[in-house]
């Protein structure tokens, strides 16, 4: 007997693309709905984002005022303000921090329920994460950007391709960030508890993704090394640089291509690690 059994005629693992897309879409919707449940948390989170936005913006503008040419890292004042406020909006969309769902499920053994579904865990979690990002984009992205635009002069893109490139870049940032977070969480398969790696990730990702300060403030050789050798600038710095047109059109598109390469590598790595983990998996609890 195989999947073509008469009693289950339409349930086949060799699914047509449209069916797989429907499954993926349903799982995305689950991620969206899950976050939509906690509306008060959304409001509280937005408020915090805005407060920290003012803090970061004033610090960076002070740096700009002190810089010799008034353009630290090649950004003018409008670009810096945009970098901060759009960055504050993207923070939860990309979701660098605060994700420990997978690690928690591994620690408690609930991962067993995920493995009992006819969808590969990485695919299922990616879909749910894209749904989450969609919800955050609709709710958490807009308030800081609006407040930033009211309080500071922001940068308006001049090139036609900037906005579509920014949209692609944000999507790639979400996927890349998902890959990284999945890998950090997956250490729980081996360690039992991923709190250490998660802490390390929280500290490292904030610096290397360009959240605390634009990476362009670092010496050029170091910036290039971080950009090429790690996926982290692709999580925040790239979409923001694309939006504020920090570089010429060629490099602008090149950065998104590099980001795409890293996003694919991270998700593929997550899938490899997941397969490895399943072979040695110990499901905790009875």
């Amino acid at each position, binding site marked *: 007997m195989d999947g073509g059994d008469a009693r289950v005629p339409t349930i086949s693992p060799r699914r047509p693309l449209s069916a797989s897309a429907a*499954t993926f879409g*349903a799982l995305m919707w689950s991620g969206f709905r899950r976050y939509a449940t906690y509306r008060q948390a959304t409001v509280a989170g937005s408020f915090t984002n805005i407060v920290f936005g003012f803090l970061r913006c004033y610090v960076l503008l002070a740096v700009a005022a002190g810089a010799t040419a008034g353009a630290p890292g090649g950004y003018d004042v409008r670009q810096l303000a945009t970098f901060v406020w759009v960055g504050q909006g993207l923070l939860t969309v990309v979701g660098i921090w605060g994700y420990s769902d997978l690690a928690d499920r591994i620690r408690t053994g609930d991962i067993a329920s995920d493995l009992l579904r006819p969808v590969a865990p990485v695919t299922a979690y990616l879909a749910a994460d894209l749904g989450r990002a969609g919800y955050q984009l609709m709710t958490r992205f807009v308030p800081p950007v609006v407040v930033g635009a009211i309080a500071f002069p922001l940068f308006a893109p001049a090139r036609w391709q900037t906005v579509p490139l920014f949209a692609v870049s944000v999507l790639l940032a979400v996927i890349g960030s998902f890959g990284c977070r999945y890998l950090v969480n997956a250490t729980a398969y081996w360690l039992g508890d991923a709190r250490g790696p998660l802490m390390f990730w929280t500290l490292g990702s904030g610096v290397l993704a360009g959240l605390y300060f634009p990476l362009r403030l670092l010496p050029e050789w170091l910036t290039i090394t971080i950009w090429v050798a790690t996926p982290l600038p692709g999580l925040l710095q790239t979409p923001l640089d694309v939006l504020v047109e920090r570089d010429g059109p060629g490099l602008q598109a090149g950065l998104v291509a590099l980001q795409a390469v890293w996003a694919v590598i991270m998700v593929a790595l997550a899938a490899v690690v997941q397969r490895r983990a399943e072979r040695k998996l110990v499901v905790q609890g009875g």
Partner: protein
Amino acid sequence: MIEMKNLRKDFPVRVKAGRFRREKRVLTAVDGVSLSIAAGEMVGYIGPNGAGKSTTLKMLTGVLAPSAGEVSVCGLSPVAQRTRLALRIGVVFGQRSQLWWDLPLRESFRLLKHVYRVPAAEHETRLRRCRELLDLDAFMETPVRQLSLGQRMRGELTAALLHGPEVLFLDEPTIGLDVVSKQAVRSFLGELGRGGDVTLVLTTHDLADIERLCKRLVVIDHGRVVHDGTIEDLHSRYGSRRRLVADLDSPLPPGFALPGAVLSTVEADGHRVTFTLESIAAGAAVAALVNAASVRDLSVIEPDIEDVVARLYRCSITSTAQDGSSAS
């Protein structure tokens, strides 16, 4: 439908062996289990805590890779073909949830329809049946996190059945449920089993579940099968006997004996006696006792499966103690 041959699962564990030293040891959770379960069977899989029940179920569902031995479910190899197998089995782990914690039950079911790619009409038919039999309508719109345990378990059972599985694995589905919820779950499973379409493997500590639902009982202890047969087999193998309890106006005369029965207890200064009926029918024993003494009240007690199983577990522990621990 389900085949296991010398199935084995070892877990490496590190135990403290000094101030800084830790020794690696191997704990054998399942130790050479061989079983064959036919389509449509309802099998109770029981054993004391830590016997290896859940580990076996995890290997059968593809969640855990066996250390040795062969296993096949629906003709598939569970670990290698896990996602294919997932379409054909349903699983309820009583202590875990497969529902979406933050979403209403209805949304969870809708998602499962997409995840398992169930045609809308089939989904509707199965959901309607579950809603009727398990009385789900009152909480279909409630988020899973707000459901009571009994409600959630009914939701879990529905979730496991919506894709029309051929085999249903239930790991302690009645754990923590009140009497009414237990009865609802049991009668639902009984109904399901009578249809004969679904093969059911049930692990539980509640032997009433087994008595009501399963003709075949597999007892596992220390990773080994210690009994495989009907409940009646178990009674006859472990010498379960009916008992006759009598309240008397005055104690039995000294030296009184009931042929074919053994006087097992004497209580209340001889006013209450219990005989274990070895080779005598209950009617004959009652007649003999009424002739010999003034009986105020009496009752015949059927052998209790809990007693038998407790005895079986104890036997198993004793024999293991003699053999040495299976964990080495």
